[in-house]
């Protein structure tokens, strides 16, 4: 895990970096994120110039394109005191990769480090910084949790989403290899679709073996990947934000 010293945010305002995938494909996750942050007592801002953090280009080796998008993202979000993303993978891009990617330009690298220090994945923000403890009588939800690769391995976040789910009545039945990759990997999923789909099928198989109705994850990429192979299956794949939002409404 890359260590970034996170600055405790004093202000009650946060900027939402919604991610391109949530914005265009699964906006309900963005809506749920806004509601959750408000329930936790925060005022949410959405800088409209935001587009993509550059990760797809970075992962494909298009460094120049990734660099341009990284600089653009730094510019857009640096005025805010805290930035929250409903995606472990994009949060890891900003937190871990930006400072490396921009190391050729010390000025930009410095700005990237400043941004990295105030960027949070949603569940991490709600547990460690907002200390959000929803009140109410929650019905028990039986679910299993998929640790997305970058969130657990690059950001070291494994407990936070589980804590949140348990706070709202979630009873987690752990699947075997909860941190085995779902097969997404960005463009990998279309560059090598046979392998990617086999990985996803294996993941869903392991989730079904956990004997639950819902498979919850914190990454929209994993979510859409896994949903793509659930036709005819009894398991529902959900994002942590929408699950939390619904039960705390």
């Amino acid at each position, binding site marked *: 895990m890359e260590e970034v010293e996170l600055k405790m945010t004093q202000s009650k305002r946060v900027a939402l970096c*919604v991610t*391109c995938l*949530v*914005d*265009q*494909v*699964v*906006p*309900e996750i*963005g*809506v749920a994120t806004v509601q959750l942050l408000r329930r936790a007592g925060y*005022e949410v801002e959405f800088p*409209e*110039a*935001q*587009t*993509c953090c*550059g990760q*797809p*280009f970075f*992962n*494909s*080796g*298009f*460094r120049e*394109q*990734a660099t*341009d*998008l990284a600089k*653009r993202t730094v510019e857009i979000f640096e005025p805010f005191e805290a930035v929250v993303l409903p995606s472990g993978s994009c949060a890891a891009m900003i937190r871990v990769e930006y400072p490396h990617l921009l190391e050729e330009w010390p000025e930009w690298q410095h700005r990237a480090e400043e941004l990295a220090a105030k960027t949070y994945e949603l569940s991490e923000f709600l547990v460690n910084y907002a200390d959000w403890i929803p009140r109410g009588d929650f019905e028990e939800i039986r679910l299993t949790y998929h640790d997305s*690769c*970058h969130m657990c*391995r690059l950001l070291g976040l494994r407990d936070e989403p589980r804590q949140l789910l348990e706070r709202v009545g979630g009873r987690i039945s752990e699947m075997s290899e909860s*941190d*085995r*990759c779902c*097969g*997404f*990997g*960005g463009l*990998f*999923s*279309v*560059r*090598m*679709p*046979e*392998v*990617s*789909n*086999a*990985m*996803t099928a*294996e993941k869903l198989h392991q989730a079904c073996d956990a004997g639950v109705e819902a498979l919850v994850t914190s990454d929209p990429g994993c979510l*859409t*990947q896994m*949903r*793509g*192979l659930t*036709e005819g299956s009894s398991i529902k794949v959900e994002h942590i934000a929408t699950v939390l939002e619904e039960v705390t409404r």
Partner: protein
Amino acid sequence: MTATLSEFRQRAKTAIEDVRLQGALDGGTGKLWEMRRLTFEELPNSDALRDHFKAIRSATLRNLVEHLETFEKNATAAGANVHWARDGTDAREIVISIAQEHGVKLVTKSKSMATEEIHLNEALAEVGVEAIETDLGEYIVQLAEETPSHIIAPAIHKTRHEAAELLGRESGRSLSPDDLTTLTGEARKLLRKRFLTAGMGISGGNMIVAETGSVVLVTNEGNARMVTSVPPVHIAVVGIEKIIPTWDAAAIWLSLLARSASGQPLSIYTSVITGPSRAGDPDGTGEVHIVLLDNGRSELVGTKYEEVLQCIRCGACLNVCPVYREAGGHSYDSPYPGPIGAVVTPLLLGRENYEALPHASSLCGACKEVCPVRIDLPRMLLELRADQVAERTIPWKERKAEEAGAFVFKHEKLMRFMTNAARLAQRPFSRDGKLHLPQRLNPALERQLPALAKRSFREMWKSGELEEK
């Protein structure tokens, strides 16, 4: 040997459709992985030990020249002959000339990645020298005229039925696949005969120790002991990066290697060869030759890929790799499969031959987590991909698509325009949030790609409907 994208995909598809192979991969890798976990749990302070060892490997590579010279001096003093090979051609010539000098017709071999890398067996066959692999798995693979598919479990893809048939054919007896004791007993007999008649033994080297000039070989079966003790001549072919300065450091290597590879606290046999038999030794090898193989390794020193030379070839990264566990070893078409293979194969055996391998990863990072020396394989895959882009060795169409995509994302208004246009275009196929494309148009094959939402988040935000009430 090559792995273009379409070759890799085709081979992976065959592997994925092979139900039996999938069972073997799941069972085998799962078992090795679980055993690894248990032995690491039992080892006090294992994280600190790994960090300590990484620091040793890193410092050794920074001054490889000094350690190699020390090794050469000490091995020569112990009576071994040290040879240097720039590449496979050099190494093959050295081995062949030693074989011919001694009139050798039969060679017994102990599992060696370096000799796989330089296709030594084929070269020996061309000059009329038969080379028999003696690791049971490698022997079965050789009888089947195949190549190994795992660094430490070469026959992970073969069943007991296939093994029984192959060994039965060789011994002229009908063997039951359900009686493994008889099966391995038959292999013991077949190979014992070979050991006692071979004119030369060839091994790799798990490591070489500079301070004593020793070659270290690790096996569970004992075949490396056979290969290095029974025939009159022994040749070890070893990559120059496999050097360790001292025995104190070698002890860490041995401990981490066995634990990472197969979940054992130590392998059954650790054989240390320091020169040929001495005066008074009742038996052993009359001549020891050590071929130090470069084959592209020295070029990597001092580059962003230097870290990959820290690898101790334990194979742990294969067992946790979700791509390897589906695609199997043969998809890589390299002696080095899996995550380490995806990095080291293009670097040592030619990037132009293995363009798919840097992409044979979802960058999940499980390999880095499990690596005893914590090699940052995902980072190196990213570097290889970036090199492909910089060297313009990726398809033109892909380059244009990536460039266009990035251009769109750099302009928010343009992004809105393009995504809205796509919304219109996807209408006939979009249902329940998924694109129901005809299969020949679907790049994800049987998986449905997600459809764009009817309205984007930014549109909802702008409309004011998300404002706090």
